[in-house]
């Protein structure tokens, strides 16, 4: 099985090396692809010092969705079969990545999400964000008749089929919740497994406090439009 680990990184000079080393240790058979999303700090130099990894340098900051989308395109172009996403900020534990791949290998699912909220251990995000996540969950349960406990988690593994579908029309601004909708509409299976996360060690979140509510409104709008539009087809 050709496995690719996708690490999106935007100004993660403090954490990116640890994430890469941890990933190498835990998934030695995988190829590691870091998508440097137009970082303005030393991320690029740090990446060029790492041997045996692949790095894509975007010419400008495209946002987390753009970085993931670029990774999907690389993945499909180079004929990989499985994709694991681990964020460059150190929130996602590479040690648990193997358990994300398991359901894909057993063909139980096309998308596996590492959820913070099944066991409720480790870092559970701030209060107002948890409220937003809760609202998204209620909407997901209502629209898709499916319970996803952690729809905003970026710790995910994809089958080739899922990556190929998402690559074609990717939601750039807020990829995680919309991925679930797009794949569900195409009839792909989604599974959640319990994981623990850490609070980010460095860098700045792609969603600041100020933007949290704006983000939520945009996500809700996209979900509704997608659902109505997808329902008609």
């Amino acid at each position, binding site marked *: 099985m050709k496995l690719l680990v996708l690490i999106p990184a935007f100004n993660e000079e403090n954490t990116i090396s640890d994430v890469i080393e941890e990933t190498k240790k835990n998934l030695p058979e995988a190829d590691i692809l870091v*998508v440097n999303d137009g970082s303005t700090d030393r991320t690029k130099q740090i990446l060029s010092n790492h041997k045996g990894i*692949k*790095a*894509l*340098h*975007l*010419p*400008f900051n*495209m946002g987390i969705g*753009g970085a993931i*989308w*670029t990774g999907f*395109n*690389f993945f499909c*172009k180079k004929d990989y079969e499985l994709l694991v996403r681990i964020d460059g900020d150190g929130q996602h534990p590479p040690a648990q990545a193997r358990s994300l791949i398991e359901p894909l290998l057993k063909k139980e699912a096309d998308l596996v999400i590492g959820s913070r909220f099944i066991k409720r251990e480790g870092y559970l995000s701030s209060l107002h964000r948890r409220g937003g996540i809760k609202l998204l969950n209620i909407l997901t349960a209502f629209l898709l008749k499916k319970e996803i406990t952690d729809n905003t988690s970026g710790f995910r593994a994809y089958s080739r089929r899922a990556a190929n579908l998402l690559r074609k029309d990717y939601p*750039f601004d807020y990829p995680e919740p919309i991925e679930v909708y797009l794949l569900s509409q195409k009839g792909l299976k989604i599974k959640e497994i319990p994981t623990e996360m850490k609070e980010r060690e460095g860098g700045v979140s792609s969603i600041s406090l100020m933007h949290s509510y704006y983000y939520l409104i945009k996500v809700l709008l996209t979900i509704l439009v997608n659902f109505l539009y997808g329902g008609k087809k």
Partner: protein
Amino acid sequence: MNPYPISPIQIVSIIFSIFLLVLIAILIRKKKIREEYAILWILIFLIFLLLSIFRGAIDTISSLLGIQYQPASLFLILIASLFLLTFHFSLVISDMKKKINHLAMTLSILEESLSEEEKNSS
């Protein structure tokens, strides 16, 4: 026949509308603006020109729409035109953003393959 005597503002607006139409025509000829983006502008300037020539048209439109104060219908037409234009720009910008992202993605992958080849050959 136009029941109104020609007023100075009418002359000014007719000249201005013609000036804008000629300007667009020149810009298209010089390839400074693409035809697809110019169509909406031409359409709007033509409407302005017609409204300037036939002053009675505004009164007719006002009474048809039930607008008491005639200049309000002029503003309505103006604002509607501007809405259309800005909406059109949003569409164009979204499309361009999509294409730019695609270029950036392709570029980064190409760069990677190139540096990989360089490593292999050296």
